[in-house]
């Protein structure tokens, strides 16, 4: 599968995850979201940026439970719950947000 961003083809796997992590740009995230009729807000970007930082530090995409807890710690208790995360990423915060962030599917996520 391929996604076209600014006229450049970006390789993704059959589920839409980026083939090459290092080729990620914010424009790719915006384009992936647009394909699913999502317009990225600052709240979306908070989560996407957090995921990228987490991956940079630990070399894995965090499980949803870990993401929820970490978001609560960083962005406030009112955001550290799955209701908030699902309101932003209705297809599942792990899968959908990781995809936009250019990360592989979270370990343990089927």
């Amino acid at each position, binding site marked *: 599968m391929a996604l076209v961003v600014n006229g450049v083809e970006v390789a993704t796997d059959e589920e839409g995850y980026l083939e090459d992590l290092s080729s990620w740009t914010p424009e790719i995230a915006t384009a992936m979201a647009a394909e699913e009729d999502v317009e990225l807000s600052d709240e979306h970007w908070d989560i996407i940026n957090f995921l990228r930082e*987490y991956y940079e*530090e*630990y*070399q*894995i995409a*965090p*499980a949803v*439970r*870990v993401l929820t*807890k*970490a978001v609560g*710690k960083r962005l406030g208790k009112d955001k550290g719950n799955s209701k908030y995360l699902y309101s932003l990423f209705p297809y599942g915060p792990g899968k959908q947000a990781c995809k936009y962030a250019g990360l592989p599917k979270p*370990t*343990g996520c089927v």
Partner: protein
Amino acid sequence: MATKKFMYVNRKAPYGTVYALESLEVVLIAAAFEQDVSLAFIDDGVYQIAKGQNTDGIGMKNFSATYNALGDYEINKLYVEKESLEERGLTEDDLMPIMWEDEDDDWAEKPSIRIVSRAEMANVLADQDVHYSF
């Protein structure tokens, strides 16, 4: 469902075989089931958590940083056998300072690594319900 004590026994050096990486992946997946998880590093397994791993020269993914994420998964009992370190000319200072944050103690950072003697390790292993060997 009653909580069971799960022990992952790691006895191989990283990179030369796939055991270390496989173990880590299974641990992270199993963490979703919220059991009481411990890891043991025995024999060459101690190299898995050695400080300063640099895989640039062998073209493999350096997964050592991922051990530092274990605390986020509520895995904070990493037993390391003292004799295994000594036989390899290593001390605790040669290991990564793997920490976890205690949510009930204002996110205080606490060490996850527990250095135990071979005799103590035997007791730790005997005290578990389920063992996975890598």
